């Protein structure tokens, strides 16, 4: 089957690429930014000490 190079097919590819750009801001491609984003979205670790539900940073 040959690749569909019709105008409609090209438009579809371009649109999907556009959505991808919107979903993935350029800075997300940088390794440092990715690391920071992961850090920000990760909830603080929970620890239970003598029944207390604490953040690890509480100690």
């Amino acid at each position, binding site marked *: 089957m040959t690749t569909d190079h019709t105008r409609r097919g090209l438009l579809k590819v371009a649109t999907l690429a556009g959505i991808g750009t919107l979903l993935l801001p350029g800075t997300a491609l940088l390794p440092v930014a990715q690391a920071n984003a992961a850090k920000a979205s990760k909830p603080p670790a*929970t620890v*239970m*000490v*003598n*029944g*207390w*539900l604490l953040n690890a940073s*509480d100690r």
Partner: protein
Amino acid sequence: MYIDFEDISEHSSDVDVCIIGGGAAGISMAITLSKQGHRVLLCEGGDADYSERSQDSYRGETVGDAYIPLYGARLRYLGGSTNHWGGVCRPLDRYDFSAKTAASETAWPIGRDALAPYYRAAASMLDLTPTPADQPISGSGLKRIYFSLGNPTRLKDKYAATLSESTTLACCLTANLVALKTQDGKVTSATFRNYQGDLRQVQARYFVLACGGIDNSRLLLWCNHQTQGQLIPQHDALGRYWMEHPHATVGKALLFNPAALGLDDEYNVFLSPTANTIASRQILNCGLRLHRMNPEATQELTDELAEQAPTLAGRLSTWQAQGQVIHGIVLRAAWEQEPHYDNRVELSDELDELGVPRSRLVWRQSELDRHTIRESMLVLGEYLRANDLGRLQLADWLAETPVQLPTDGELAGRHHMGGTRMSLNAEEGIVNPDCRLFAQDNFYVAGSSVFASGGHANPTLTLVQLALRLCDHLGSRLAQGDQPAAV
């Protein structure tokens, strides 16, 4: 009007409905039906006031987890346990009537909409105060809930004039049910006994058993035994699926922002998991009760937390120096129990003074029951911690898994539910959605014993709603001149 035990048979020849038991369900029905002009006979086994000779029939055994002695968990005289209840009321949640993700047995054959029309009348009968609508707490998985509090109506006092003066309602004290006769799918007579050993038979078009969440099962087990199973031919579920609301002190917490839970305005706040939380956490329903500590106890708890969390302690000191109020709270809880076939009322080998076998209650909390309370506390604790609104401490018995239940303290709410479970078919329950015994056309059961599941809310409002719904059903049959038919 009151009638003497000696006259009960003669009086019963013209009775539309004989109600057996004068507690919350029985009195609600007697007052309602008699006001509608129906001829009602209310048979109460106890006296007008507390008496040891009556209360003695409530002695029984308990097997399984630690539980309150059956003798002291209820009252056996006119007014029943409304003579000592606390008046705390709340309707069941809508999702309490449906199958929960963690236990499909929680499903009722009717929905909350079937009881909603009776809310206003039941609230009026119990003198409930209006409560605000539940308020979800954004991002917490919890909602703030409200109870009607602090107005424990004593039904025998509230309706004293009607009980003594009504011409359509006859009330007979010391009339204890000891046997039922059945023929062709109808109960033809009920036999009552007084404390002198005299026996009298009562015939009525309809009978309603309203003797409470343990004795409804006990009396049906005994009567079914005497009729060689003719009363309830399919009796596998009789006495089974018995439930309580386990109660306990479940932990403590320090709140850095009490307003987030509404605790700055009120001393006590009630929380409950939302429907989504119940589904996603695979738990049953639960009511968490937050009671504010005094400043001294709060400081002690703050010091205790500081030992475990020195970094946090530094922040707390700074906040307190800046004038921020930190509230300590004690957490108590009442939680839903899984309807479990093995939890049951059965007959003991010992007879009471009336010749009826005493109750033996077999009751244990399941893994799901234990999971429900621990997980509910974790939901609150995680919300407080993740949003830096406070820190929560689980009670010792709840912190470790497997959870080891307390063997003293509150234990349970004295909320006796199940045993004559409502169901769509006789294989899975004892009464149909009209609260009628499957095999008897004219015999009904009223009270929390028909609950298919119990949510976490105190049961009295729901059982009165059910009782008033049953009044409508009976009123309709009586108005149509409906003669009980063979089943």
